[in-house]
């Protein structure tokens, strides 16, 4: 049985695969049937895998003429009712931003993978970074909500890809899967059990056309979408619209629709939030890290604990919206917080904001290398000893 069949049938087979391979299989297991992309290192393997496997499941793969077109095609496919994804890296992620904002504003579900490489600009295409945390949240113009997930292992790329599709459909939102080049191209064993997981479906319009309002959030703030061909003949626009879907500049209608848009993710934090803690209950020092830096931090915690030092780890899995409450709980006993990250301080800025007066230190490496456990443990031990 090949890996695609395994992913689809949920036979729980264990395979040794790369992070990007796991992403492609997770997408297939989640029901992704459309992928549009453009070649870019270090994410191209996702496109290559799906180019091979999507036709096997009656899906469509298309390599578009540029990054902008691939984002646009993904949104177009999703407007047609098909689960759709694209994958890219820093420069391509920048190019996609205008259309990501369209997906956020028009509330079109889609998944965007951004494998982070060194930047700015062309930067270091084959080297890892974690410097797109803020672009993932704020990259498009205007004010808009978005969901960003940051897996830290190949297995988690598989499961978080599936969760990304579920959240996109449930919340009618673009979802960014954000991971670094190290885990993208790292090979680990993964249990391919995706089909065991009940995949979420979009809320579709039903009932008479006259009573249907395309952007009426109903009881949960998430509007039902009209599937083209189902007889509703609605209008979708990037212009600010009222509940009927048509453009408006009426201040009350604009405020009503945008307020619902901004609050809809807040109302579903129970679905969206995800984080992991390790030895935080009694920790004097809590390390906050994502992705490959969190893997190194986990080992650093073990090294510290072996020395009898009370050091813990808090790892956001959902990065945006940021898990503020969970971070505050994890650091309730802490004297200080340490943020190791492969950028100049993007995650530290968030942690400082959430924790107010708490002393927050950072380890910031932007040399194109990953942070090692020893780098983190050395600093954490000094902080724990108060030296």
């Amino acid at each position, binding site marked *: 049985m*090949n890996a695609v069949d395994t992913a689809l049938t949920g036979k729980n087979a264990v395979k040794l695969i790369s992070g990007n391979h796991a992403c492609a299989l997770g997408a297939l297991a989640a029901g992704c*049937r*459309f992928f*549009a992309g453009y070649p870019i290192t270090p994410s191209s393997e996702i496109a290559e895998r799906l180019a091979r496997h999507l*036709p*096997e499941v*009656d899906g*469509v793969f*298309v390599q*578009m*003429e*540029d990054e*902008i*077109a*691939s984002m*646009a*095609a*993904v*949104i*177009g*496919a*999703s*407007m*047609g*009712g*098909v689960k*759709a994804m694209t994958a890219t890296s820093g420069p391509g992620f920048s190019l996609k931003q*205008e*259309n990501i904002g*369209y997906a956020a504003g028009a509330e079109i579900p889609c998944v965007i993978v951004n494998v982070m490489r060194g930047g700015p600009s062309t930067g270091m295409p084959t080297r890892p970074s974690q410097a797109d945390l803020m672009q993932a949240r704020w990259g498009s113009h205007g004010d808009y909500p978005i969901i960003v997930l940051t897996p830290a292992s190949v297995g988690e790329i598989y499961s978080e890809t599936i969760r990304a599709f579920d959240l996109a459909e449930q919340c009618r939102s673009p979802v960014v899967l954000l991971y670094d080049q190290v885990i993208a191209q790292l090979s680990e064993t993964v249990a391919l059990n995706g089909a065991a997981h009940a995949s979420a479906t979009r809320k579709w319009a039903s009932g008479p056309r006259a009573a249907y309002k395309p952007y009426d959030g109903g009881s949960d703030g998430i509007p039902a979408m*009209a599937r*083209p*061909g*189902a*007889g*509703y*003949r*609605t*209008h*979708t*626009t*990037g*212009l600010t619209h009222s509940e009927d879907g*048509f*453009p408006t500049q009426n201040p009350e209608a604009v405020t009503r629709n945008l307020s619902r848009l901004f609050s809809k993710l807040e109302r579903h934090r129970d679905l969206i939030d995800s984080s992991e803690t390790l030895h935080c209950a009694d920790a004097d020092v809590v390390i906050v890290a994502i992705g490959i830096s969190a893997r190194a931090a986990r080992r650093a915690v073990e090294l510290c604990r072996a020395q009898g030092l009370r050091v813990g780890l808090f790892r956001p899995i959902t990065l945006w919206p940021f898990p503020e409450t969970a971070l505050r709980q994890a650091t309730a006993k802490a004297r200080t917080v340490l943020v190791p990250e492969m950028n100049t301080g993007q995650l530290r800025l968030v942690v400082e904001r959430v924790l107010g007066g708490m002393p927050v230190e950072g380890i910031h490496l932007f040399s194109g290398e990953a942070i090692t456990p020893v780098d983190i443990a050395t600093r954490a031990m000094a902080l724990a000893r108060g030296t």
Partner: protein
Amino acid sequence: MLIDTAADFDVRDYLRKEMMPHFLCPGCGHGIALRALLWAIHDLGLDKDKLAVVSGIGCAGRLSAYIDANTFHVTHGRPLAYATGLALARPDLHVVVITGDGDCLAIGGNHLIHACRRNLKLTCLMLNNEVYGMTGGQVSPTTSETRLTTTTPLGNQEPHFDACALATAAGASFVGREVTHHVPKLKELIKAGLEHPGFAFVEILSDCTEIFGRKNDLGSSPEMMMRQSSAIRPSAYRDTVDTPFRPNTLPTGVLAKNDRPEYGASYRRAAAARAGAPR
């Protein structure tokens, strides 16, 4: 055919009446183009529920909102890219793109040439009024030489694109052009585009009376339309080879047509053939 009457066609059956009055300026040719499209849809008996209209940004981009169909008003320059995703994912829909000269040839130029090359079944109507009207009258890739716009106060010094020659060179399997002055002919051309099994590119010469016409002292809308009408060369009288830049008289009608394979069907056929083979 050319004395076609619209006896059984009521444009109101295809418009969203709640969107009226429309926002087009007095004298704008875009309303005529919209009517011709809806008439063509009527003649072909296309199901409005299965019709998807994707449009970009600009005056032409706003037309989709008036059509009683599944309509998508997307980002500037990208309607062909959105439509590509929609048509590939939903081959059961009839996907029409409405775009303008700036949307299609400037910011969206890359998508146009690749849509022509790919030959996915889409009908692309490019409404050419030689100007960025919605933003107040800036020069576009189709603005004629020496014309005045807000960004060419010295008169336009750039040569303009012949969109149909560009589409033909990029491999479009159906290319046509018509003026808004000849509505039944325009309707027939759009019908032929809608019926074409691959990518169909139709350039519609429209007029921007309020902004471009006024700036260049081109007179009323009927005067602008008559000037366009006298400058065209119907396909029956075509005698010269197209160049990448517009010659003094413009050929109209169907300018290119071939039956090379449609991309979506080719992809699905290849996938089906592969399904039986070992992986």
